[in-house]
């Protein structure tokens, strides 16, 4: 039996430092880039890579709060519908004479409200999982978008609105700057604040968190509301890039987003993973898609690759874990 009395020093271990999932992602990322370079001579140039980031960063905004949700052990599959609904409402309002800045603000507000409703339902009806609640709201939000716009497209936004999706500040795409700021905020939120610590605690053991005086219901509502808000941010950039919107916009985004989060090493069992992993995964999947797109791999094949990637990403840590636990006595 261990009789030493506790002390407060931690030894630094190189092994622990390198045994992190994020290094694996970096390696895969490099591999993807080498592969892409061999596939297409147009891939490896500053302009090309810069433009690539612009094509996939829109959904990356949702990845940030989705990390929190999956660490909580929950899931939100309604995010793509929130993108569609807030985008459609914004376009609808603008076309009926509301000034664009106000319409954009309302777009964010719609996302916020949708997320809040998700959170509220999940907290008030604990016997329903977040799966079924967000499944229902996913259909409802998308349904409202259809009711508003039927099968029309809405657009003709003011000239300056396209800056969001297409503009540069110096040589850097505007969307990249905004994403960097948001990512920084979320990293601090998750890893440096009491809020983040509580999210991890809840994901590991919700009951114990409650007994420790954490306002678990309020925390959950906040996290889901954040997801709604960030989905609306995605809606802004996406709508700007496309120049118009339809009720079926962003279909399937929830899969991309969840795949990125899971590939980033965030465990679907909750409580584990880091923001940086998911951000790496955003770029990994983004560049992979971009490179394959350059050599005209059809969209259907991309769909299959993405689906398999999601499955493999959740399987990998399980395989590692089971080989670890088989060793007796750790």
């Amino acid at each position, binding site marked *: *039996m*261990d*009789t*030493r*009395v*506790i*002390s*407060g*020093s*931690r030894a630094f271990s190189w092994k622990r430092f390198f045994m992190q999932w994020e290094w694996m992602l970096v390696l895969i990322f490099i591999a993807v880039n080498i592969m892409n370079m061999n596939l297409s001579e147009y891939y490896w140039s500053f302009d090309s890579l810069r433009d690539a980031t612009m094509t996939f960063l829109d959904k990356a905004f949702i990845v940030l709060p989705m990390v929190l949700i999956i660490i909580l052990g929950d899931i939100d599959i309604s995010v793509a519908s929130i993108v569609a609904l807030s985008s459609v409402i914004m376009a609808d309002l603008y076309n009926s004479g509301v000034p664009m800045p106000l319409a954009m603000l309302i777009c964010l507000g719609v996302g916020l409200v949708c997320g809040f409703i998700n959170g509220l339902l999940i907290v008030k009806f604990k016997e329903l999982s977040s799966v079924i609640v967000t499944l229902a709201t996913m259909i409802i939000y998308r349904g409202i978008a259809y009711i508003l716009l039927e099968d029309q497209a809405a657009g003709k936004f003011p000239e300056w609105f396209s800056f969001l999706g297409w503009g540069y500040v110096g040589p850097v795409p505007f969307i990249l700057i905004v994403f960097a700021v948001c990512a920084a905020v979320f990293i*601090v939120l998750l890893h*440096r*604040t*009491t809020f983040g*610590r*509580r999210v991890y*605690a809840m994901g*590991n*053991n919700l*009951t*114990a*968190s*409650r*007994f*420790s*005086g*954490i*306002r678990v219901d309020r925390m959950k509502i906040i996290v889901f509301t954040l997801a709604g808000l960030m989905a609306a941010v995605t809606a802004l950039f996406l709508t700007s890039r496309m120049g118009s919107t339809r009720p079926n916009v962003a279909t399937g985004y929830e899969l991309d987003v969840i795949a990125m989060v899971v590939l980033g090493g965030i465990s679907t069992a909750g*409580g*584990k993973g880091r923001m940086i992993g998911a951000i790496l995964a955003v770029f990994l999947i983004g560049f992979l898609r971009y490179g394959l797109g350059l050599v005209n791999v059809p969209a259907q094949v991309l769909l299959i690759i993405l689906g398999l990637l999601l499955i493999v990403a959740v399987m990998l840590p399980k395989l590692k874990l089971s080989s670890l*636990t088989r060793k*007796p*006595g*750790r």
Partner: protein
Amino acid sequence: MEPYVLELKAITKIFPGVKALSDVMFQLAPGEIHALMGENGAGKSTFIKIITGVHSPTEGEMYVNGQKVQFQNPNDAKRLGIAAIYQHVTCYPDLSVTENIFMGHEKVQKGTRRIRWGEMHKEAQKLLDDLGAKFSPRTLMGSLSVAEQQIVEIAKALSTDAKIIIMDEPTAALTKRESEELYRITERLRDRGASIIFISHRFEDMYRLASKVTVFRDGKYIGSWQVNEIDNKDLIVAMVGREITQLFPKTEAKLGDEVLRTDGLGRTGYFADISFSLRRGEILGFTGLVGAGRTEVFQSLFGIEAYDRGNVFVKGEPVRIDNPQQAMKLGIGYLPEDRQKQGLVLDWEISRNITLSALDRFVSKGSLDTAKEEEEAVRLAQKMNVKAPSIYHLVSSLSGGNQQKVVFAKLLTADLDILILDEPTKGVDVGAKSAIYEIISTLAGQGYGVIMISSEMPEMIGMCDRVAVMREGRITAMLGKGEVTQENILQAAMESRSPSEALAGVAKS
């Protein structure tokens, strides 16, 4: 030589990080009722799960009727006529009583493999009648009370026509009259030729039923005796490891002002009319049978599940408590009954666990100051004498006693006046137990008002200034100094209400 129906030799079971059983032996003769005794955490539950094939032993051998056996899963054990009645009822709430009884050994038509519902319902009815139950076998399991579910569990064991029956704390939730009925059933089973392992930590059960007793302590085999060969005192020494009087370091604390008072607290379906008061420096015990509502009362008081009647006064002020944050703000701390599920984040380091409930104290400039946090964690861990290499050690790798000390340290991060300790020594080895008693005694001496909930009689007698005994959701006795004896506690905890009293209860609610 008489062959044993069941014999286990040198059984060791290791779970990741924990050695639950080490080199344990056990012998069960045909037609005997064999009591297996030990305190909480002695390894009894793991032991049963090995016999029933739920776990397989890391080392050791098992013989049934002299044949060496190795169980791959529970069906193997069942086939050899081994059945268990578990302490925590393991039922299917969405299925009928009949199905719960026959799950895993349904009666099927030869050839078509069709389930013979009619026959099963009929047989279930017969079993229930035998046990004196008055509900239909078609009732949904989820709508039964705990005592009723216990009967179904017994019926389940009977239905397999088992030759070896294991009963794990079957009396823990039963009143005296219900226990008597259970004794009769048990004896009838024995007379039919079954051998029974009866697990309990109540001496009364053992004396009434068993002819032989085996004692485990801290996962080790201590010894086996004929029941008439060993007296109460020696048995306690065997179970606890030393004499009771040496165990409790209770020092007299000066009683101060009243810190907590409740008046007619109630929650539908769980408890009613709970009134008591607590003073600084006092240790007030709450005891009673499992399911008597002790934990429910104090989880309500801590804001986990809201009470719906009555008033609470903290330091004389009337208050309303709806969630744990409010309770903690008012100075009420709660050490939960199930430390692994409710008290700790097992996959976390010691330091993070200690600071979890007081994170706001370690914020500077909007972010967590980990240096400050760890400093406090080290201070409290040392104060509680947690034994671990560092505060970065995972809590899951600690022993039960050290885990409990971490929960105590966590409790002390907040600014509290009232400590509610729910089964503070559950699943803790003997050495750590006395350390925890010392901590509790010291805390009372420092002026905390302490409420201690426990099922362990010696603890109540040795530690508490006063003891409240609960039965079926009500306080049935408040025993003051000098009245706290085993007899008084048992009397108040186990006597069933007379029919007229029960009727009065219905009329009231």
